[in-house]
């Protein structure tokens, strides 16, 4: 069995699966249950400054969207940072870390944007023996209205400034948690790096309204007839998170900056995808909230099976493997030609491919009177839509034309690699004088 041991910025854990800072990590009771179930580490739910704790709503905190059969696809929440007294949290963190030496325990922090506040909280957590801190610059609801969370994360200069304070007043490894509610995630990542962050973690939740109550005309979750935007997470946000992780992993300015991947990790495969795109480990919340802590067992066995099948002996063999293959559109090979092909034996004759292609694409699928569907190679632009809408696994596949073969649509032979930067239609290409 592959060795899943993880060493993330010097923080060791028996596997790369951490619970993200969130409701499941708010108390010793939950965290110990998580460790018993096999989680490699936890990021304790965000602590705030000393003083009266924050107050949460006493109506619904979560909204959701579901697939058929009530599969939970996306969750949003309006819960704030921990609403328990600071001293209670600190005491419990200390107890848990002493009892679970082999697990990673990180403390998430969110205090007002002044140096004294950060210095103070860092002093207070010093003797918990926690392995590191995560700066919550991500939460988009509630606390952001008070100038914290994503309100900091949306201003790279603030990120850099606070990170600097943290590195100045603490020897703990520092992870900066980024908000996706920005236009270019590389900017805050660069700021974190400049400030001295040991790593970034992303994504925090996405501003969202999951649904609207059409009887009461209020967003859900509804609190006394009103709703507010909450932070969206769960399987639905994974594609957004993957892209943001990849952007940081491949950017020249941030390349090599360790990343803790977050965003809809539900299965081993999700975790492996984040890691291939450069995440050194992953953090999970919604999957645990949906299925319970035991869900980590599938992630462990699945990742292990996968690594064995690929001959990978350590997680380092996987991390970043896909990063070199993430590129800009302009560098994609314009001489790479594929054609859809439909396996008539596998086809169940539903006609979805035909409708998709005929109505919304390139009219490249023919349908016979007895419902046999076939691809017109002289029309097919290889868009992949038919593959994506087909309900049968491997019924429609893409066939790659070999070099020298004629593309019946263009009449041209498949040539060598060439991209937009040298394409004759590109107005910025200067003809050689």
């Amino acid at each position, binding site marked *: 069995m592959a060795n899943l041991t993880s060493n993330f910025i010097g923080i060791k854990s028996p596997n790369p699966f951490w619970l993200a800072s969130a409701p499941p990590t708010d108390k010793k009771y939950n965290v110990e249950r998580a460790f018993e179930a096999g989680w490699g580490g936890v990021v304790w739910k965000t602590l705030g400054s000393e003083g009266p704790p924050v107050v949460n709503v006493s109506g619904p905190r979560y909204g959701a969207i579901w697939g058929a059969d009530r599969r939970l696809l996306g969750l949003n929440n309006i819960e704030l940072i921990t609403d328990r007294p600071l001293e209670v949290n600190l005491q419990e963190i200390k107890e848990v870390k002493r009892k679970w030496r082999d697990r990673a325990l990180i403390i998430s922090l969110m205090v007002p944007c002044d140096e004294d506040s950060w210095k103070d909280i860092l002093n207070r957590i010093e003797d918990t023996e926690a392995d590191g801190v995560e700066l919550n610059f991500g939460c988009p609801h509630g606390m952001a209205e008070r100038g914290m969370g994503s309100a900091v994360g949306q201003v790279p200069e603030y990120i850099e400034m606070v990170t600097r304070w943290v590195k100045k007043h603490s020897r703990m490894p520092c992870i900066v948690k980024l908000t996706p509610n920005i236009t270019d995630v590389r900017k805050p990542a660069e700021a974190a790096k400049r400030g001295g962050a040991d790593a970034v973690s992303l994504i925090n939740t996405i501003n969202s309204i999951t649904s609207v109550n059409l009887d009461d005309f209020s967003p859900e979750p509804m609190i006394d007839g009103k709703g507010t935007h909450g932070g969206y997470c769960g399987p639905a946000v994974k594609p957004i998170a993957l892209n943001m992780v990849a952007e940081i992993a491949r950017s020249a300015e941030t390349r090599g900056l360790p990343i803790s991947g977050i965003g809809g990790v539900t299965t081993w495969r999700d975790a492996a995808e984040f890691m291939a795109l450069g995440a050194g480990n992953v953090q999970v919340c919604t999957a645990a909230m949906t*299925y319970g802590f035991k869900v980590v067992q*599938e992630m462990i*066995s699945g990742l292990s099976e996968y690594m064995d099948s690929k001959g990978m002996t350590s997680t380092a063999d996987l991390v970043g493997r896909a990063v070199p293959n993430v590129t800009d559109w302009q560098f994609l090979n314009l001489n790479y030609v594929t054609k859809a092909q439909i396996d008539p034996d596998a086809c169940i004759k539903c006609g979805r491919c035909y409708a998709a292609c005929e109505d919304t694409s390139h009219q490249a699928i023919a349908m016979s009177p007895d419902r046999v569907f076939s691809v017109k190679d002289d029309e097919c632009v290889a868009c992949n839509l038919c593959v994506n809408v087909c309900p049968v696994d491997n019924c429609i596949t893409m066939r790659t034309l070999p070099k020298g073969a004629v593309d019946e649509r263009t009449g041209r032979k498949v040539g060598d690699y060439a991209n937009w930067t040298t394409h004759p239609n590109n107005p910025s290409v200067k003809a050689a004088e």
Partner: protein
Amino acid sequence: MTNSPLTPGVVPGRLPAQAYHDNFTDHEPPLDGHEARVAADRCYFCHDAPCMTACPTSIDIPLFIRQIATGTPEAAAKTIFAQNILGGMCARVCPTETLCEEVCVREVAEGKPVEIGRLQRFATDTLMAKGVHPFTRAKATGKTVAVVGAGPAGLSAAHRLAMKGHDVVVFDARPKAGGLNEFGLAAYKTTGGFAQREVDWLLQIGGIRIETGRALGRDLSLAELQKQYDAVFLSIGLAGVNALRAPGEEMAHVRPAVDFIAELRQSADLSSLPVGRDVVVIGGGMTAVDAAVQSRLLGAETVTIVYRRGQEKMAASGYEQDHATSAGVRIVTHAAPVAVLASGEVEFAYTADTPDGLKQTGETFRLKADQVLKAIGQTLTGVPEGLALTSGKIAVDAAGRTSLKGVWAGGDCAAGGEDLTVTAVAQGRDAAEDIHAALVGA
């Protein structure tokens, strides 16, 4: 073809050759990858799942189904085999409708359980098809254990003991290992020589030697085994068959259903297997159903199961009963055999439940029967001296310990089981754990 379903007497070849193939193919065909993912998707990953509690071997069913759902059926198989090394056979023959699937929350809520049995088969078949044996032996302990009986309990015990580093010899009176997996059960539940393939796969763990044709009491004595081995596990099954206690049962066309099934399971050419035109099966359990359905599949014109109590008391599940009736078997309840007649009939008396127990009402009827199969239960025979019995079976404690020091027992021969493959596997496994603890002085 000279014979047909209408040919009188007990004759072979009642059907065209192709019919034998079609009739004895997989009763429930395996799921393909897509079907398995769709079926797995229905599992809710319940907390403290009722299915897992209902499984006699406590397989972590939600976990293995999730592992199938996430495209790792090999990991799913490991989850299954860690609890039940004969998970492949159990996937085929477990009465899931009265175990895991009966308590599935979706069965309770919708009447449509997650197809746990078929998903288990998908996972175990996938791993076994790769020829992978997922376990390795612990360091050799130098201890030896004799297992008597190579059925599910014996194989399960042997595997667990071998895994713990002990050297195991399994003795079996029959010419092949497998016990009822090989000689009992309906052929359409375990096609393609699966029972032997499973034994071969299980033996890949190493450290197990099988000696067939060695019967306890004839070729072996318990006292000798106790002397030669550090521990003995008895899983000798139930070799005896209960009598009808009706005149005429000595006639040649009356035979135990288990013998009929064993012969069928070992037959290389089912068209050469004789079966009656009118078959009467007496009993109400799985053996009765297996014998009756297979008689029909061999070409019998009429097959009737006659059970002395009410339908609700039948040991065969409702699912099994439905399977029998859909195969064209008639089920008659509340009727007990009175006499097997030379006329080629069996006379039955109707029965009724009374405050004093089951009583014959005095009203009788006759069924044509050129073949009568007795399926009214098996009994323990050939018990070595000195072993305490309870209710006709070997008395054991929760860990499988018998009244004799150093001797454990499990499977159908031991008291407390349910005469199911899966309970036998659990008992073998648990006894092996206790033997291991005893041998290494834990």
